[in-house]
């Protein structure tokens, strides 16, 4: 049994552990202990703890890991727990840096102090590879590991370190995921100067080198690039049909360079007209179908703002296109246009040659403004949130501090907007058109959330991947600009946590409908971690065109390969397929929560105390076991005796089953 438990190989060196799948650990190798750091793992190596370690390890590419976990604990727990797939302790004890396939050590610096915000100074060895920073405490008794991937670094700063001698330099890594790390190192110990080295490695695109994703050479049994096939997805929705066609008009990205090559547009419009519409829409992002209701044929259509301008320009073709979109849905004689922006902003945009559809030019159109602020406001809000959460949390004024970040308020606006759209579509049977300014930020948030509410397919593990691939990646959410992969310019005003906000909204929904989603919180956190990590090609670059040009699918791996190779870890054991159910989240601040297990996870005080999942899984095992025994007994009973009522057939047992997924 022991050899099947990765942690159980603890004692015998870094040899290949038989159970570790070859693709086991792209995020981080070493991991037996876990947690926010410090001696905490010594605390109580319970089963729950291991489970939590596992969660944390998988969830955080770069976490502060510590603690030798007694090797016997593995065997003790293994009866309750699925195996840890993520590396083994062994390497940690050998002071070896776990390396991913394709990863190379760049330098090793001894005598480095990690200035831990929670526990003070830690003395250790810092290793820099082309993917990560890896810090190990020297003292063996209370190990401490800090594993930070370079992609997550937003900026590097030299800081002054008082009282540590003349030759000591300080370094602060400000990260994109709500934390900062400070190190102090001695110049004579460092063969190279650390700062330029790190700068070069962390911001490869600013130094004309390539992202690590192009060097990563893991082999996964599942190919995540095959998750999303636009034609298959549209076919699932029942497209093309008599009103909608799959158009090749953008197959070479000539019409719109930020749109995907496959678009669904109304049948009754010529390519010429489409081109004229493109000229009238910002960035040529014409109204195209995102989702169609299987029964009412009401659609979600996304686009960018019309270029109305100060002189209230009109475009016949655009007006006609919207009319066709409305006519394609026989159930309603209205078309609801949702402008994500604040009304006042939409009006000011007219001066900048933008604007919104005028109800007088577009007949039967109702305009709704969702009053969602722009990307800069969101960026500022999350920055404030970091101040509240890291490194210390003010107990007394916690709630008001959260209020002042307005983060939840914006989450609320987005969720409420998406719920309004979903309601319009479901109850009002009306097609909706969504846009903001360019149609790649708030629009993506709104359409994907509305689709998540409306279509249960997107609430599955695979379906959600399709949703992200479709609404975000293929439709040109500018991931490279918003995240700033490998880019030195941390102050770039293009950066904004729009995708984080979207995942937060999804998390809020999973909280309100805990059984309606097939994926779990770990999945959401993993997605967000790899948004920054640059380990996978999934979120790289701004548009499908760029990704095709850089041959991303051929040269890099997909995040979904990693996830779908071990789906059980990311699956909600209590998923119930609420098919054909529209989920309307309660959008009141009273029913929203701060996602502290993501935002505040670096704080060791936030350690989750009891993993409920463990218990839930145990019930599932119990059920499976009982089911097996019932069948066994029934078989025995029916073979030995002819009994009255109980053994009619094994089928009632199955019929009695609740519709719970135990697996994907």
């Amino acid at each position, binding site marked *: 049994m022991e050899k099947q438990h990765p942690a159980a190989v603890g004692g015998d060196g870094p040899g290949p552990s038989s159970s570790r799948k070859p693709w086991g650990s792209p995020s981080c190798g070493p991991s037996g202990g876990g947690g926010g750091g410090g001696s905490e793992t010594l605390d109580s190596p319970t089963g729950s703890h291991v489970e939590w370690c596992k969660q944390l390890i998988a969830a955080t590419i770069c976490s502060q890991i510590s603690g030798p976990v007694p090797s016997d604990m593995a065997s003790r727990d293994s009866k309750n727990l699925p195996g840890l797939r993520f590396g083994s302790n062994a390497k940690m004890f050998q002071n070896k840096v776990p390396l991913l396939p394709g990863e190379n050590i760049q330098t090793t610096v001894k005598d480095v102090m990690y200035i831990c915000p929670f526990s003070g100074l830690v003395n250790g060895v810092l290793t820099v590879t082309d993917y990560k920073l890896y810090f190990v405490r020297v003292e063996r008794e209370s190990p401490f590991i800090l594993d930070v991937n370079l992609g997550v670094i937003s900026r590097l700063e030299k800081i002054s370190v008082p009282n540590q001698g003349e030759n000591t330099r300080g370094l602060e890594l400000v990260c994109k995921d709500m934390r900062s790390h400070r190190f102090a190192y001695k110049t004579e110990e460092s063969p190279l100067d650390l700062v330029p080295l790190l700068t070069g490695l962390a911001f490869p695109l600013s130094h004309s080198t390539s992202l690590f994703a192009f060097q990563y050479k893991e082999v996964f049994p599942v190919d995540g690039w095959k998750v999303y096939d636009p034609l298959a997805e549209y076919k699932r929705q029942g497209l093309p049909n008599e009103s909608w066609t799959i158009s090749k008009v953008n197959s070479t990205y000539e019409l719109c360079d930020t749109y995907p090559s496959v678009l669904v547009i109304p049948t009754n419009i010529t390519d010429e007209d489409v081109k004229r519409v493109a000229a009238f829409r910002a960035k040529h992002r014409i109204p195209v179908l995102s989702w169609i209701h299987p029964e009412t044929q009401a659609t979600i259509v996304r686009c960018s703002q019309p270029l109305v301008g100060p002189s209230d320009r009109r475009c016949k073709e655009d007006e006609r296109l919207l009319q066709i979109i409305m006519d394609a849905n026989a159930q309603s004689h209205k078309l609801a246009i949702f402008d994500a922006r604040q009304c006042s902003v939409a009006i000011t945009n007219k001066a900048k040659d933008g604007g919104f559809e005028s109800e007088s030019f577009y007949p039967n159109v109702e305009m709704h403004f969702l009053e969602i602020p722009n990307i800069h406001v969101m960026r500022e809000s999350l920055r404030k949130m970091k101040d509240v959460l890291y490194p210390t949390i003010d107990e007394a004024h916690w709630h008001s501090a959260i209020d002042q970040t307005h983060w939840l308020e914006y989450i609320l606006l987005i969720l409420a907007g998406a719920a309004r759209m979903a309601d319009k579509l479901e109850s009002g049977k009306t097609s909706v058109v969504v846009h903001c300014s360019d149609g790649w930020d708030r629009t993506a948030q709104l359409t994907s959330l509305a689709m998540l509410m409306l279509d249960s397919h997107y609430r599955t593990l695979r379906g959600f991947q399709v949703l992200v691939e479709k609404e975000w990646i293929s439709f040109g959410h500018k991931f490279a600009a918003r995240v700033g992969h490998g880019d030195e310019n941390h102050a770039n005003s293009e950066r904004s946590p729009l995708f984080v906000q979207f995942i937060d909204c999804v998390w809020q929904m999973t909280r*309100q409908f805990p059984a309606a989603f097939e994926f779990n919180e770990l999945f959401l956190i993993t997605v967000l971690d790899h948004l920054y990590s640059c380990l996978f090609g999934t979120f790289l670059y701004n548009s499908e065109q760029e990704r095709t040009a850089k041959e991303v699918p051929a040269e890099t791996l997909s995040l979904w390969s990693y996830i779908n190779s071990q789906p059980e870890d990311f699956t909600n054991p*209590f998923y119930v397929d609420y098919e054909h159910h529209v989920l309307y989240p309660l959008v009141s601040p009273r029913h929203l929560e701060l996602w502290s297990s993501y935002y505040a996870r670096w704080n060791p005080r936030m350690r989750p105390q009891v993993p409920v999942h463990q218990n839930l899984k145990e019930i599932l095992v119990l059920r499976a076991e009982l089911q097996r025994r019932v069948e066994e007994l029934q078989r025995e009973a029916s073979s030995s005796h002819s009994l009255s009522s109980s053994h009619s057939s094994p089928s009632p047992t199955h019929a009695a089953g609740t519709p719970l997924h135990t697996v994907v």
Partner: protein
Amino acid sequence: MLTGSKTTFKVRQMLPDIKERMLSQSGMNARSRDVFGLRCLPGECVLQRAVMVRKKLSAREGRGWLSGTLFCTHFRVAFVPQDSPKPDDNADPVLLGDHDVALASIEKVVVVGPNRTKLVTPNSSLKFTPEELVLYCRDMRVICFLFDRLTPDTQVLEMTYTIAKTYQPPKPGSVLSFQNAALGSVEMKQFLSNRRRDSHMNWCESVSDWEQELERCGASGWRVSSVNDRFEMSTSLPRFIVVPQKVLDTELKKSFAHFNEGRIPRWCWRHPRGSDLLRMASFQNNIYYEKDDVRNLEMVLFGCQSSLCVVVELGEELPSPADIQLAHGRLRSLCLGDISTSVSVPDDKWLSSLESTRWLDYARSCLKKASEVACLLRGSHLTVALQEAEDRDMSCVVSSLVQVMCDPHCRTQRGFQGLVQKEWVTAGHRFYSRVNHHRDNDKEEAPVFLLFLDCVWQLLYQFPSRFQLTNDFLLALHDSVHLPLFSSFLANCQRERCKRHQNSGQSYTPVNGWRDTLHSDSSPDPCDPPLPPVWDWALQYSQQRRDAFTQPVPPLPPAQPLLNGNLNTNPDSHRSDAVPGSVFLLSRGTFSCPANLLPWRGSGGSSVYKKSHRRAASSENVPGLERLLKAWALTELPCGLGSSSSSRPQGPLDPYEPLLPLLTGPCMGLWRECYLRGALHAQAFSHPVSANHAHPVERLAREVQQLKDKLAQVSAGTPHSPPPAKVAEPRRSDTNLNQNTNNGTFLFPAQRPQGPAGPRAVPAPTSTNHQTSRGPPPSSAPPTRPAHRDAGGSNKQSFLFGDLSAREQQQVHYYAATSNAKLPKGSGSSMAS
């Protein structure tokens, strides 16, 4: 929907005036309690009825609306869903149905008209026909009924007026008439007087109860003293108190005078590592004392420990009752909104407003204090004495929280009930004044107990799998506090309860009349039953609701009835270096050896004290104690990288390792299921998809139960057919296991003799059965599922739990053991049925 003709017929029938109907109901209909589909209590009469009413369901109930008939009796507002099963006349009466509200819990009645909202008082008259009726309850429920256009206007108006007139406005005396309405009938009294107490919980009332508790905790060296049997020594203490064995009653008697209200140090609980938890009131100053008094006091205080005593001062760091009352008031108005106008706090200020109620702050400080005490108790062989001025408020909170944290038994439903009996009801928490049902002294009102429930919920929220009791149980208890029907909450101390018991005639008005108090004093009914204790849940809730009081799956470490200090496996470091007889004061997180802890020392008799206790050496113990406290600080902030791990717990599954909650801002949750049940601010789009967390789990649990029953059925049906391995094995292990799990209800709320067990015996029932009963629509269970499950059935297990067959086998054994324990019981019940 009811058919039109029938409805109107019944409506006409309802029209005769109230008095007449009362007579007819209480007279001839007394036996058949089914009135228009409403199952009445004996003597209960329907005052008003409205048909075609829809009740708004909360998110927990599945949202959406439920249509049915609304009733107002002189005891409750009842709602009967239209397709609810016909009530069974032979079943025991249940005070409140799942959709009912007792009139006494209603705080305000608000109606919503076409475009306005009006608060309805007994004297108000309406100028419009309400469309919605909203009942704001004291227990923070908000119940909303929507009248259909087809509901006759007269019914709507009459219903509104009737409720407004009959609900109990908070004034003295109203409680009595309410109690009479509920329990006053002859049948009800008879029924109550025949009711047996739950023998599975410890009531902490008799000598044997206390001895049982001592035995359970393995507390040797203590005895039950009946020195206060007639409440002569202390009026507020229970009749029996637990004191050190070596202290004689005569010695004990001299100590009472030195404590506020005579509340001397008494034993509460023993930690399995051997430390004792005591509680006491503050010292009485300026009282003449004798040499012996000091010695006696020390004996009492040190209990059977020889080494260390830590006095934990509860006054300063914890909220006062007045603080709690203020905070709770703010929380109420925040969560319910401004009742008359239905305007709530602006959205962007919600969290700030929540913070400014300070409710969560107070919960945090209680938990913090309890964590400190729990950590102290971890060190073995010391006495921790909680001291509070009166010893009747925060010491109840802290001592019981400590036990919830440390003792898995207290996290079971029965154990928790026993705990509340021990630390609150008999210990003399002034429920009567604090809950203030009678409205006779508003200054004393303070929901200390509700704060405690909130703290327990915080623990439950952070350690969901360590509790056997559930959120539903806490909610039920929370709501029951607001019902002035239970003896547990209607007296300030044991003495008052006993008094009421003896001459209950005085405190009761007799039966025959709702609000008819004519005979109340003149002819007291001699056989007036006592008010029931709150723990008689069957009286309050349906079987179905009660089933949800406990978790379907046992918390990981099974409860062990006998501790006997045998967990004290680590040769503790504190005992060795401890000097016998040192007293420390813990206040604000620091220890001190106060010079004047005992107020009368310092003058004459102090020399005795000093001599016997070598105080000079005692300060050496401070580091040891601080280390204990630090252990807590470490788990909260686990970053003391250099700290040694010597004081670490022993095993991973030490069930007595205290549950130490995290107390930072993000970790303190709001008990939404309780405070935000009203959820009137919920958005307009309501859709019948359950947001109920436990729901799928519950269903799964039911399924597991079902399978177990089925298994039992099969094995019971084949007693002589040979699957000996399967049948014999459980029997054998049964005897062993019964020793460990002394109450069989631990694993599952198992032996439900009737109720769900009935249909379960039939092999046919499917999950849809449960769904209709649980509220959420059956649509959530697509019937196509079985096929899918069949397909994936074989490889399911291996998928979820890794690919190790070896481990799987071990799991099999693991579970086989637990389920075996249940087998004989299950089979017994199924055979009986």
